Structures are given as C-alpha cells and as structure tokens.
C-alpha cells in the first residue's frame, strides 16, 4: 500500500476546466500531482504527463502463455500422459492441433483477460481498504486536482496559490491521501 501523503486539492465544476488547469500545472513544473474525476477525461494523460499504461504487454505475454499452455496441455494429456485411441484420430502435435484450436483460443483469451485485469489491479494498487477520500462528490460531479507533498519544492501555500490562480472554485488542504 502506497504511503499516504498530505497535499492540497483544488476543485473545478467541469472536466474542461480541470484539463486546462492540469495542463497549466504541468507547465508550471509540477510532476507528482494527479487529477481526480468521476470519469476518465480525454487528454488528461498528456496533461498530467502520464506514460502509456504497460498493461498491453501483460496482455500479450499472458495471451502467449495461455496459447502455449493450451497447445502443450492438450497434446501432452491426450498423446503423452494417457494415450487413448479416440475415433481413430491421430494424436501427433501438429496433426491433432486443429481439434484443439478452440481450447487453445479460449485459454489465450482467459489468460490474457485475467492477467490484464490483474495487472490493472496491481498497477492501480487495488483493492485499497478504506482509502482516504478528498471529497465524496469527486466520484459524482466534482473535478479535482491534487498536489501532494512529495512534489519538488512543495509548500502548501504555494500550491494553494497556484490552484487559486487556475480558477479553482474550492481549495482544500488534504491531510492524508
């Protein structure tokens, strides 16, 4: 669980203003700050300087693992481990593969999907048990920018002023986030 930090939060009534504020905050040299919104905001990644999520790699390798496991498992169980003549069909790896494709496919999807979701959970640090909430309305209709104390040269006043200059309708000092 990530260490909890204090910081300053500013609020805006809609996503455009938040996006604008985020861009400006980034321009002002802030790097650790984060935006909070009830829904994802297009362009916010660039605005806050977040890199593309690495989850696709996880998906790819998990899918590959699923596929190779499927190929190996179906072949090994039916041709090696307990070889039985079923309907006179061949059991060689390549000859038999067409019949196993649906299994291989499903395993690919299953591995990829579960691994991706797992990765998302890990990257997002979920599940969090009872995390501190800046404002309950953030998940409904408020848009927030949070500048944490870990920011280089952080001072609460400076951050407050900065947010105020960006037109935040409300500013809150957050003891713990």
């Amino acid at each position, binding site marked *: 669980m990530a260490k909890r930090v204090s910081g300053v939060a500013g609020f805006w009534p*809609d996503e455009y203003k938040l996006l604008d504020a985020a861009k400006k905050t980034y321009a002002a040299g802030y790097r650790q700050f984060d935006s*909070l919104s*009830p829904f994802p905001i297009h362009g916010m990644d660039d605005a806050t300087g977040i890199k593309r*999520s690495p989850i696709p790699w996880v998906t790819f390798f998990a899918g590959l693992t699923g596929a190779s496991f499927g190929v190996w498992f179906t072949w090994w169980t039916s041709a090696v481990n307990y070889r039985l003549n079923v309907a006179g069909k061949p059991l060689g790896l390549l000859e038999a593969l067409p019949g196993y494709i649906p299994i291989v496919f*499903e395993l690919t999807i299953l591995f990829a999907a579960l691994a991706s979701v797992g*990765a998302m959970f890990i990257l*997002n640090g*979920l599940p969090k048990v009872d995390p501190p909430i800046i404002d309950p309305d953030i*998940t409904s209709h408020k848009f927030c920018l949070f500048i944490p104390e870990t920011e280089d040269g952080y001072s609460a006043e400076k951050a407050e002023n900065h947010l105020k200059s960006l037109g935040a309708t409300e500013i809150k000092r957050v003891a713990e986030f």
Partner: protein
Amino acid sequence: MIKRNILIEGDKTYKDISDDICQPLESFPGIKWFQLFGLAITVLLFYVCVLGYIAWTGMGTMGVNHPIGWGTDIVTFVFWIGIGHAGTLISAILFLFRQKWRTGIARAAEAMTVFAVMTAGIFPLMHTGRPWLAYWLLPYPNQRGPLWVNFRSPLLWDVFAVSTYATVSAVFWYVGMIPDLATVRDRAKTNLRRVIYGMFSMGWRGTNRNWSHYEMVYLILAGLSTPLVLSVHTIVSFDFAVATLPGWHTTIFPPYFVAGAIFSGFAMVVTLMVLVREGFPQIKSYITLDHFEVMNKIIMTTGLMVGYAYASEFFIAWYSGVHYEQFAFLNRATGPLAWSYWIMVSCNVLSPQIFWIKKFRRSIPVMFVVSIFVNIGMWFERFVITVTSLHRDFLPVNWSDFTFKFADWGVLIGSFGMFFTLFLLFLRVIPMVSMSEVKPCYEVGRKGGHHG
C-alpha cells in the same frame, strides 16, 4: 459531418445524472417491484424443484428419448447463451467502434449477459444423466491414471468457451462497475452501505493514474471480448456443426449462430429496456427512443441475416445432392414438426420486417411485441435445429416423435424465473446505467460545448 442526436435527454447536471441513476439503489422498492420480484422468485423456486425432481428421478422425466438425445435443456441452453451475446456485443464491439450510444444500455445489457450465461450454464449441467459428476469435464489431475478429458469433443470446447465467456464477461462487467460502485459508496448515507459498496468498489478514487490503467484494461477487455463473444456461439454451433447428423453438419452454422445470437440478444435487450423504462421513468432520459431505433435496426438486419441462413441451408441441402441432407431440410418444413419451423420463420424473418417503417421502429408497443416474437422464434430456431434434425436421421427405423413433458415446460419457464430474479435484484443493487460512461457523453449532440 453528420449531426448527432443527443444521447441524454433533458437538461441535467452531472449531479442530476448521479441522482437519477442511483435513485433505485437508494430508495425502498415500490410495491410493483415486489410483486414482480415475488413472481420471479416463485418461479425460481419452482425451477429449483423441477431441477431437483429431474436430478433425483432421471433424465427420463423430460421429453428427450431415443433418438432425440437432446431436447429442451440444450435448446434452452443455446437460447440463453445467445441472449447473452447482445450484452458483450454492446459493451465490447460497439466500444471498439466508438459507438457512444452504447453507454446508455451497456450496463444493463452486460448484466443481462452475465445472468443469461448463468442461466444457460445450468442447462448443460442438468441435461447430463449424472449431473453430480459433471466436474469430470474439467481437466484436473486425478488418481485415475490420471485420466484427462477429450479435448476434441465440442462439449469440452463448450466447457472452455462458456466458462471463459462467463468469467471474462463477469470480470468485464465488474471492472466497468468499479467507478460507479465508488460513486454509490461516496453517496452512501449509512455506514453499512458505505462498507458494502466500499468493499466492492475496492477503494476506487478516480485519480487519473487509475483512469489511465483502467481505460487501457477496458479497451483490452473489449478487444478480447470481441473475438471471445464471436467464438462462444461459434463453438456452441460446433456442438451441432461438428456432428455427423444431417441438419447439424453444416459449415454455415458459426456465422448463422452468431447472427442469431445477436438477433435474440438485442430482442431481449429491447424487451428488458422497455420494462425498465416503465419501472424507472427517469431512465427514459438515458435510454431513449433513439437507442431503441438503433437496436431495432440491428434486429432487422440480423433477422435478415438469419433469414438468409435459413434459405441458404435449403439451397445447400439441395445443391449438395446428399439424400439425407435434403430429406432433413424437407422434413423441417413439411415433417411432423413443421409447425415449429414455421413459428421460427414467421417470428424471426417475417415479424422484424415491420421495422422497415420508421414509425414502428420508434413505437414502444410494436417493438415490445416484436422483441417477444423474436425471442419465441429464436427458441424455436434452436428447437428446430436440435429436435427436428434428431427425430428423423439416417436409419428410418429410429425415427420417432417428440413430446413436451411437464419437466420440459418446468425448466423452460423456471429458467426465466432465475433470470428475472437476478435481473430484478440487479436493478436494485447496481447502477443500471454506467454513470462514468454516460457522463462524458452528455455533451454529445448538444451545441454549446460544456455546460455550466
């Protein structure tokens, strides 16, 4: 640029949206809901009793016989699996195509998917002679040698496809739900509520870093679900297509089944959404007539595709020159079970044709009736494929007839009890429209950029 219609009707703030959508969760259900729920759960209990009776007494309590090894159970299984497809289609394929209108109906449609797959999943289990041993279909290490499973059997493909589909669509549904559950948590007035929704929302806070990963995984899941959903009904169709039976052994089955699944799925979405709009009038702003019109267009299109499949089956049967194949199709249309064939054709091909007329596409009563027709028709499509093909196969000595017994009716009606029980509960505990997806779409079709 084409002018878009607005997706969300009425002048709303984000808070209004939250309020509208969370209302069913935060208010005590009315008498109507209780009546419906009471009915559904009664049917569910009846269902449980019928299933118990079948499992206790034997499969002989159902109409299946020799040579009709598969009957109501498999027909209804395929029916429900098909229903499920619309949800994934809406949430995944339309997501990939950036169809914004999907947001209004996605959640409920996905819920329908999950519940339909759950309902469907019971059938392959219960249709076996020894359901208590159905876990033998899973390849797990055991002390029999170990003895594995037959990975070449379409039924095993089914196990993998259906369970993967159930898992992935449940996960997909749940992942989509997390931000909304957080909203409900943050709106909670009581502690208990906060704790419960807090648990299920997993501490979601909506930071952009989270959203970034979240959107990525959502995209990936949509990308994975798309081939998955197509594969599921393809594989279900393999149950038939891979078999040797005339009338089953057809290469057209995968696309035909998928089209049919989407067809029936959308019909069920229409049925359900009409009912939901009746029950929760505020939802009318989010699920609008435009939504219905689009869905009805899809129903009409897929109906035509299914109709094309029906026609092409006959053509191929004739063209193949195989006597058995020709007979099987002739028998569908003229044999002792021809009534089921003609119910299927009139419900699936004829009834959606009414949607050529815009007025009817936008008429709630018309679409409600048609959607129910389509559901009936699609059940009979599976009946025609399964039973009609089996009851007259290769050797004429084996030919026999099919009769519905009490247990057949019981499981068919009962499965609706299960589905509706789950769906009615869903309406009350989970936001039925995805708030985090609807909110960004508020602007769509509206002129003045952002609102105040």
